């Protein structure tokens, strides 16, 4: 009887440890997605400098510029996909608008997570 109780306590301890591990995993996952990844910040900076240096957003030139960064997996301009890589997994988008000769251009850039 005493031996059975000890075994139950042992099982209970293991189960509590598992629950703790699950909570830690949840916390880690939520923290991971609440901070921006390095590549996201890099691409953000890259686009910002591109905007400052250019009077007009020329699609081919812009795509060529972003293609140099392997983190960029998708580029949509005015809702049209102009660039994408194969096997797109999970990605985060950076959205912005550019005033191109008095007309807004909507740009979505997908960055690999």
């Amino acid at each position: 009887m005493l031996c059975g109780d000890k075994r139950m306590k042992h099982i209970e301890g293991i189960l509590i440890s598992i629950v703790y591990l699950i909570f830690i995993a949840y916390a880690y996952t939520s923290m991971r997605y609440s901070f921006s990844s390095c590549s996201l910040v890099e691409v953000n900076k890259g686009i910002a400098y591109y905007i400052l240096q250019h009077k007009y957003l020329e699609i081919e030139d812009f795509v060529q510029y972003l293609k140099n960064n392997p983190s960029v997996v998708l580029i949509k301009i005015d809702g049209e996909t102009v660039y994408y890589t194969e096997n797109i997994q999970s990605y985060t988008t950076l959205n912005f608008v550019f005033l191109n000769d008095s007309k807004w251009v909507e740009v979505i850039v997908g960055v690999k997570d």
Partner: protein
Amino acid sequence: MLRINNRGQILLLAITIFTSTLLFILASMSKPTPKLTKYVGELQSSMILQISREYVSHRSRNMYIDLDSLIYDLYQYNESLGIFISRLSYLYSNYTDLNVNNGYGNYTLTWNVTYPYLNNRVRFSFYWNYSFLNYYYRNIEGIVVKYSNYSLYIEHTYICPQFKVIIHPCIYAVERKVVDIKYVGNGVWIIGIPTNTIQKFVDEYEIKFKVKG
């Protein structure tokens, strides 16, 4: 009695583990969807700086552009595209002092970007100055014309909490056949213009400015 309580606790723990595992499995099985980042930084400042430059470009050429309307558009894009532009207010100023020996001028648009817990300043400024160097003579279609040589400095300044960028743009004269231009470096140009004239110049971002000879 103690044993029954223990069994209840173990059952509860087992259910918790089972549910969590099931949720993890379901989450990993779901199709990945794009997430919109809430990183607010350089990109937002650049958007504001870009419309500032466009505004200055229009104003310098006496062309009308409604800045309030552009701001309204940005707020609309917050809703439709998620560009994370916060509440904006602005102040435009320009000053020019053109003399024969020297002169300077600037167009500046300063923004106050209000976030829930902080205010950011974003500023675009176009600045130029010139100073007299010497006279020279140029033969134009058989007529000898007296020219004034000037050293001209041009810069764009982009300031926001994340960076300060200075760009020295390329310029050209509106009357290309009349004006002599040579680039020295670091935003400095040597320009030759007919004495007693005012010459107009435009930079690569279509911002217009004047030099008095």
